[in-house]
Structures are given as structure tokens and as C-alpha cells.
């Protein structure tokens, strides 16, 4: 089975990857989109004073 990888996805913050699987005839059998980044804000924000959070979470995506 042939595999085509498109990496990274254009103009996406958070890094996406597209993987396309082709069958023997060269037709698309299946395609997957993955977000390959993980941040972790849900955990590390715990304990931060609430008024500091808006200024901090704008860095989840600066676009």
C-alpha cells in the first residue's frame, strides 16, 4: 500500500499532518488528518491567578 504524507499542513498553527493511503490501483483508499502538537495548558495553568490567565492563554494560538 502506498502512503503519501503531507507535512506540515499549510497555514495551520498547531501543526497538522495528512496521511493518504493508496490501493494497488493508485486510488485513495483512506486518508487521515492528525494534529501532531500537544501543549498542556489544561494542566500547567492550575494555580495561576485568574486575572493572569487571559494574558497567558493568548499564546495557545498567536495567529
Amino acid at each position, binding site marked *: 500500500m502506498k502512503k503519501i504524507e*503531507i507535512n506540515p499542513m499549510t497555514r495551520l498553527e498547531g501543526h497538522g499532518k495528512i496521511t493518504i493511503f493508496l490501493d494497488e490501483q493508485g486510488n485513495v483508499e483512506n486518508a487521515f488528518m492528525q494534529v501532531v502538537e500537544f501543549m498542556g495548558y489544561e494542566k500547567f495553568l492550575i494555580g495561576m491567578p485568574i486575572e*493572569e490567565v487571559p494574558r497567558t492563554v493568548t499564546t495557545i494560538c498567536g495567529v
Partner: protein
Amino acid sequence: MSKPKLAYYLAGGCGGCDIAVVDLAEALVDVALQLDIVFWAPTVLDAKYKDLEAMPDGSIDVGLVSGNVRNSEHEHIVKVMRQKCKVLIAFGICAACGGIKGLVNLHTTEQLLDKAYINTFSTDNPEKVPPQTTVVVDGKYELTLPTLMDARPLDQVVKVDYYIGGCPPYHEHIGKAFMALLSGQLPPSGSWITMGKAVCEVCDRNPVLQGKSKKFATTVKRTIEGTPTEGACILEEGYLCLGPVTQGDCGAKCPSANVPCRGCGGPIPGVKDFGLRAISAIASMLDNEELVEQIPDPVHLFYRYALPSSFLGKRIKR
């Protein structure tokens, strides 16, 4: 004569620095006309990693990397950037010192994944499956994800020629940096591209610049507990502004908007561990020791932007 080639890679960042370059607006047209932008992924151009890997080593004059190095894909591509670029710049505080996303180093990967994918009241994951680095779907489609690592600033992975701080860097400062690059007027390799002044030195609220002397803060306040007096120093009023230890290439934008500086510009020259110097500076500006106990949440305050570049680099548990 051919135009200098520029490449830009966004690693573990947010894209804000990329947009800050775009924020040069009309000035960007002048800069862009003088450059050949061969790669800007993933934010702007339709280039792919294999395009970068195919370029000859050392063929790109300037490489910008923003975002910290957080997973194996970032680690691989920044090494490719180092190979392909003659000059590599850590662009923005994430690349320079680790950034806000560096706060993940306070926790283990297991704890972070557990909170995001399993233990939150709004998460529907009954089989408690965290992300895997390899998965085979339907028995035949193999998919991979990069491996997660501790967040690191760029210079802990590859040699860095220049550093530019800011979250994001102020667009006028970026313009000046590009002009210096294009005219070859750069400081020695390994330096920060900065005016070298602390936020306080460029802040209109600095009492010293008004001919007065600085006073100790007699109280510690959260920003919700009051409004700074107009024209007065925010730190003196107890709001824990990190201006004294932060580079002021931003022109003290936050204090001019009544908001205390949080240190995104990076450390003033000569400081290796921003958090440590910030703790020492703030403590020395407080009137008495009891006030130190009142500082809310020190780690997210002093190490917000520079945890990975600090001496410890992360929380160490025994």
C-alpha cells in the same frame, strides 16, 4: 547580485511571532523585496519539510525559528534548519528561553496527557486512551505522532547565532533587526539583538526619569485589587511589575497600558536565569520580608517565559 535567502520555521510556538513579522505591514514590503523567502512553514508558505531537507547545506542565509522544541519533529526540523542556514536566529522568547509553553516542564508528560485527555469533566474518553506515538487503524493503516519531550529553548538543541526576545517581539524592533541583518550590522554571534535597556529605562512611569527616587513597595497586590495611579511606578504600588529585569525593546508597552510587565522581552544583558534574577529584584524592591510571603503564585509569575532556560530547567521531584 542575488537576494539573501530567508527561511522561517515555527516549532513549538503559537505563530504570534510569525504574525508579528507580518505586522511590519508596509515596512514588510520593503524588507520582503530585498529577501528571497524560500521556506516559511507552516504559517505562511505552502512549503513542506521535505522541501527544506532537499536544499543544499548552508544555502540559506538567514533562518528564523520561533517556538520552543517540544517534540521529536521539532527537534529534527530545527537540526535541519541549523544545517541549511548560515545564520540561525532564535526568534521570540519561546525559541530564546522556552516561553509560556515551557511551563509544561512543571509537570510530567503523563500528568499533562492525563489532564488533557482523561481527567477533565468535559472529556468523553471512556476507554481512557491517551495519544500514542504509533497506532494501526483497522489493522492496516499505520499512523505516527512525534514523541513528546521536555520543552527546551533552541540553544539547548542547536547552536544559535542571535536571540530576539518578546512575546511576540514588538514589530518596530523586528523591523530594526531586519535592517541590521540586511546591512550586516550585527553584534557578535551568540548575542541578543536588543537595545540592551531594561523596561524601566524606557518606561514613562519610572520615578527616576522624573527626577524622583524609587521607593520600596509597602504592599503586594494582584492586578484585580486596584488601578495603578496614573504616571506612577506600577512596581512601587505593589503590582509586581518585572520591568527592572526585562529587556525593553517593546518600549514598555504593557506599563503604558496600566498593566505590569511580565517579562516577555527576556532577561537584561548579563542575566542567565531570568526567574532567579526577577525573584531577587522584586524581593529587593519590597519594604519587608512579610510581603514576600504574599506574592501570589511565584512560579507562574517569575518563570512564566523562561523556565526551560533556567538553571533547573524544570520541576525536579524526588
